[in-house]
C-alpha cells in the first residue's frame, strides 16, 4: 500500500496509538500537532489522507478544514475528523465544511482503520 497519512493531533498518547496502528499496516505516517501551521503542512505534504483533530491549539480543526477545502486542489482530499467534544452541532458544521468522515472519540481501532482504508480507496 504505502500510502501517506498526515495526522494532525496534539495528544501524544493518541498520536502514539494511531501511528502504531497505521504503520503496522504499512502506512507512511506524518504527524503535526500545531493547529496554526497545519494548513501549510497539509498543502505542502499533499498526503493521501488527513486525520484531523477537532480541538487543536492555535486553530480549530473546523477552520483548518474550511481553509483546506477552499483550495480546489484539495476539494477531494479525504479528511477524517476526530473530536472529543460531544456536540452534534460540531458534526453538522464539519459536514458543511466538507469533511469526508466524522468520528467521535473514543473510537475503536477497527473503526478508524476501516474508515481510513475506505476513504483512500474511494479517492482513487
Amino acid at each position: 500500500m504505502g500510502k501517506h497519512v498526515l495526522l494532525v493531533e496534539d495528544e501524544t498518547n493518541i498520536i502514539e496509538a494511531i501511528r502504531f496502528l497505521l504503520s503496522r499496516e504499512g502506512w507512511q505516517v506524518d504527524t503535526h500537532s500545531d493547529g496554526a501551521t497545519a494548513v501549510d503542512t497539509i498543502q505542502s505534504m499533499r498526503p493521501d489522507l488527513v486525520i484531523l483533530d477537532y480541538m487543536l491549539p492555535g486553530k480549530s480543526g473546523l477552520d483548518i478544514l474550511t481553509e483546506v477545502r477552499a483550495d480546489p486542489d484539495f476539494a477531494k482530499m479525504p479528511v477524517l475528523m476526530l473530536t472529543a467534544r460531544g456536540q452534534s452541532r460540531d458534526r453538522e458544521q464539519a459536514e458543511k465544511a466538507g469533511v469526508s468522515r466524522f468520528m467521535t472519540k473514543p473510537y475503536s481501532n477497527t473503526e478508524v482503520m476501516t474508515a481510513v482504508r475506505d476513504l483512500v480507496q474511494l479517492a482513487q
Partner: protein
Amino acid sequence: MTSVNQLIGVSLGYVIFLFAIAYLAERAAQRGKGGWLRSPLVYTLSLSIYCTAWTFYGAVGYAARSGMEFVTIYLGPSLVMIGWWWALRKLVRIGRAQRATSVADLISARYGKSNLLAIVVTIMAVIGVTPYIALQLQSVTLSLSIFSEPGGDAPLNQLIAGFWVAFGLAIFTVLFGTRNLNANERHDGVVIAIAVEAVVKLIALLAVGIFVVWGVAGGLAPMMEQIDASPIGAWDMDRSRWVALTALSAAAFLALPRMFQVMVVENEDERHLQIASWAFPVYLLLMSLFVVPIAVVGLDLMPAGSNPDLFVLTVPLAQGQVGLATLSFLGGFSSATSMVIVATLALSTMMSNHVVMPVWLNLQGPGAQVSGDVRNVVILSRRASILMIIGLGYLYYRFSGGGSALAAMGLISFAGVAQFLPAMMGGIFWRGATRWGALAGLCVGFSVWVFCSLLPSFGPGAVLSVATFDTGLFGLSWLRPQALFGISGLDPTVHAIVWSITLNTTAFVIVSLFTFPGPLERLQGAQFVNVFDHSTQARGWDAALATSEDLLIMTQRILGATEALDLFRAEAARQGVQGHLPEPTPGFLQQLERELTGSVGAATAHAMISQLVGGASVSVQDLMAVADESAQILEYSNQLEAKSSELSRTARKLRDANAKLTALSVQKDAFLSQISHELRTPMTSIRSFSEILRDTDGLGQVEKTKYASIIHGEAIRLTRLLDDLLDLSVLENGQVNLNFETGTLSTVLEKAILTAQASGTGPLDIRRRHLDEAVTLTTDLDRLTQVFINLITNAQKYCQADEPRLVIEVRQDDGAIAVVFSDNGMPIPPAARALIFEKFARISDNDEAGAGLGLAICREIMTRLGGEISFQGGPSGNAFTVHLPTQAALAAQ
C-alpha cells in the same frame, strides 16, 4: 284709642314697607347699582341690631329698677367701637380674609377647621340666643296687649299673637335671608331693612323722649329737678356690677352671632368700621339720652305696680298720644324684628353649615357626588334651620311663661355668648392657642354659665332644686350655683360672669399650653394672628401699579397669543384706547383674573395678578391654594412618572435576567464541551491502547509495559480530573465544610512541598526563609495546603528555566499575612494573565498540563477562607501571592 286690629294693620303695613325696601335693594344690588346700599351710614345703622327690644323697652325698665346701671349696656359696645383699632379691626379683617360666615365658622377655621368646635359653638349659640329670641316675641306681644287693655275689644290672645309674629318673622327671614346663596353670605335686602328699622326705632325713642321732657315734664330744667328728686338719679354704683356688666356687654358685642353677622359678614369695606367707630357710639348715646327721663316720668305718672318695661308705650298712651304710642310701638317692633331676623339668619347659617349639611352629606354616604344639587339642599337646610330656630324661640316663649324682666334675660343671654370670647380673642392674638384649649374653655365656661346663670334664672325649685341652691349640687357645698367654691356674698350676676369667664379662660390657656396644634392649626394660627402682614385692605386691584404690557405677556402665556390679544383689543376698544393695550383698570384686572381662573385655577390666577400688580403681596393662603392646585397636577404627573420608571425598571430587570440566562447558557455549553473533551481524550488513549494490547499478537514486553503505563497514567489523569471537578463544584456551591484548626505556616508549607515533590516532576529549587514562617494560623489547614501544593506543582510543571527556582516569601503587614511564590520561568503572556484563574484556562501545551482547574480551585478555596490569591507577572518570572485574612478579621466572622 287705637284698636289692636288697627295696630296690627299698621304693623302689617310697616312690614310690607320693609319688604318693599328690601326687595328694591336686592334688585338694585343685583343690577350692580347697589353701591349706596353699602355706605358707612348703612353699616353703622345695621350695627344697631345690638339695640333690641330689650334696649328699646328694657332700658327704661332697667333704669326704673336699678338706676343708672343700664348705662353699662351701652358703655361696653361703645368702648369696643372706640377701641376698634385694637380688636374689632383685626376681627373684621380676619373674618373677611377667611370668608368666615359665622362665629362658629371663624372659631372652627382658627383651630384647624375643626367641625367639632363649630358644632359646639353652634349648639351653645342656639342655647344662648333662643331665650333672647323668645324675649323679642314676648316684647312684641306684650306691647300689643297694652293697646288691647283700654280699648275693651276682644282680649288679645298673647300666645296666638306670638305665634303669628314668629310666623311673620320666619317668612321674612326665609324670603330675604335665603334668596340667594353668595359665597360671602351677604344680604343686601336684609341689611337695608335693618338700617331703616334702626332709624325708626331711634326716631320713636327720641320722639317719646322729647314728648316726655317737653310735653310732660315741662322742659329741660323741670325735668332735671324731677330726676334729681328721683332715686334713679342717684349714682350709687355697685362697682363690681358696673365693671362686670360693662365688660360683659363689650364681650357680647364682639361674640354675639348676630353682631358678627352685621359687623363682619355683611361688612363691605373695612373703612366703614372707622366711621362706625364714632358714629355707632353716637347712635347709642342718642338711644340712651331719654331713658332716664322716661323712667322718672313713668314712675311718677303711672300707677304703682305697672310694668316699667313698657313705660315707653304706656306713658304716651296715658297722655292720650295715640300716634306717638303707635310710633313707639313701631320702634319696639323694629327693634324686636331686626334682632330676630339677623340672629336667626346668623344661627341658621351656623346650623346649616356645621350641623345639617355635614349630617346630610354623611347620610348620602361616602360615594355621594357633590354636584349642583347641593345648592338647593343648602337653601333648604337654611330655611329649615330658620324655621327651627324661630320655632324654638316661640316654644321657649310659650313655655317659659315670659315672667322675667327683659333686662335680666338679656344679661343671661349675653353671659352665654360671652363664653365664645376667650376662644375668639385668644385665637386672633395668641398663636399658642389650640383646638383642645378652645374646646375645653368653651365647655367649661358654658357649663358654669348653665349652672350658675341659666338654670337659676328659672327660679329656685324650677330646674335646680331649692336644696341645690342652699347646699350645692350633690350636696357639695362648693357647688352652690350662686356661691361657687364657697365664695359667697357676690352679686349673682357678677358671680356667674366672673366664674364662667375666669374658668373658661383658665381652661383655655392651660389646655392650650399642654396640647400641640396640628399643622393646619399652626398655619391658621399664623394667618389669624398675623393677619395684617398677609392681607391687604382692598380686595380689588390697584391698577396704577400694573402695566398692560406685562399683563398681556402673562395672559398670552396662559391663554395663547391670539386669544390674549383679542381679549386686550376688545377691552381697548371698549375703553376707546388706540392699539391693543387698554388701561389696566380695576374692572379689567378683575375680568382678567376671571379669564385666567378658567385656565389655571382661582388661586393661581389671583397669585399671578398679585405678582404683576405688585402692590398686593401674595399671602400665605394664596400660596397654599396655588400649592393645592399644582399639587393635584403634580400628584398626577408623579404617578405617571412613577409608573413609567417602574415599567422601565422592570424591562431593564428582564433584559438583565435574559442576558444573564443567555450568558449562563453559553457558559454551560462551553463548560460541557470542555468537560467532554477532558474526559474523552484520556478515554480515547485508554480504549485505543487496551484494544492494541488485546488484539495484537506478538507484542514485545517493552511495548506491552509502555502501553499499559499509558493506560495507567490516563486512568489517573481521569480520576484527578473528576476529583477536581467535584471539588470545584462543591466549592462553587458554597457547600464545602471548612475545618478550622490552628497551626504554623511553616508546617503547612513543609507538608505542601513534600507532597508536591512526591508526585515528582522535574527538579525545582525551592528557597524559603524559615524564620519568617513561624506564624500561627487559624484556618482550614488542609485546604490551605491544597492551594500551596497546587502552586508548587504548577511551578514544577511549567517553570522552563535552565535551573528552575521557586522562592517562597512570607510578608506580614498589620497582622495580614501574604505568602508569595515567585519562580524564574517564562512570564505568562499579558493577554493570558486575565484568564489564568478561569476554569480550563490552560496556558501551556505541556503534556503534564492538567485540565486547567487547579488555579480555579485555588481561587475558590481562598475566597472561602476569607483571603485571596493574585497573580503578578514580572520580566523575569511569575509570582502568585496568597493573602490570608488577619486573625482579627477571622475572629470577627
